[in-house]
């Protein structure tokens, strides 16, 4: 089955106050050499491709990737403030 990961990050020019807050807490851990912290979202999508023959798994992955692009662009990320990347999750690594 096809699994896809969408990473959503605030654009670099958009202030990330959550990242700033984490950055501000690091010296209390004794860490003083961090320049910047940015916080984003990771979304894992699992497609239901039951019935797709195993020899067509490449097709399923391509279709999942294509649909995930639409999902990310239309819903998961707001292109006004965020960028996203989409990648197929390596089954062996998962």
């Amino acid at each position: 089955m096809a699994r896809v990961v969408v990473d959503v990050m605030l654009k670099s020019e958009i202030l990330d106050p959550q990242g700033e807050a984490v950055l501000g807490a690091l010296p209390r851990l004794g860490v003083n050499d961090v320049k910047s912290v940015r916080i984003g979202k990771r979304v894992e999508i699992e497609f239901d491709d039951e019935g797709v023959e195993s020899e067509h798994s490449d097709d399923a992955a391509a279709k999942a990737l294509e649909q995930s692009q639409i999902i990310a662009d239309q819903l998961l990320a707001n292109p006004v403030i965020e960028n996203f990347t989409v990648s197929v999750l390596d089954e062996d690594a998962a």
Partner: protein
Amino acid sequence: MSARIGIVTFPGSLDDRDAARAVRLGGAEPVALWHDDAVLKSVDAVFLPGGFSYGDYLRCGAIARFSEVMGVVREAASRGMPVLGVCNGFQVLCESHLLPGALVRNAHLRYRNRPARMRVESVDTAWTNEYAPGAEVVFPAKHGEGRYVADEATLDRLEANGQVVFRYLDNPNGAMRDIAGIANEAGNVVGLMPHPEHAVEALTGPSTDGLGIVASVLAARPASRTFDQPV
């Protein structure tokens, strides 16, 4: 017949009842619209109230954009129907691409709950035409994600076109160029973070400045026009 103003209730809306009350005090008839409604029930205008639609999951307003009612609101807005979004309603309008830009976490990360002083920067909209140009108004603000952001080109365009409708006098959230509320190019769609529906009675609000919003949309109402979708 008094004007009918639809007030949308999404799952998680909070201020729909206050909005209905403000509409009634302003002399119009509030009409309840449910998020699952695909019809506008012959309303003359729509008010998207504040709250936490769909739990504010993903981003504020992001899920509400896909509700049945927003489909018909978007379509009617394109034909000139006045639409007002307050707080979460403003976020829904931005997510629905009815207004440019986006609303993100307050720069100081804290929820801000206090009266907001603003200047009315544009009276050429369906929702502000009864205010004096440059008038100072006070509406309660209460939000955690109210910082208006857009790219510089969009901000310049909003300023040049007179689409900045309300500007903070004491910016409570770090909004770019102190923007509290904006309009679309046609002026029928307006969104703002502070709540005019909480500023309609001396007993409960910091002012009664919010009544001007309802007075404006009543003044802007054409004699006979329906925004219901042809069946």
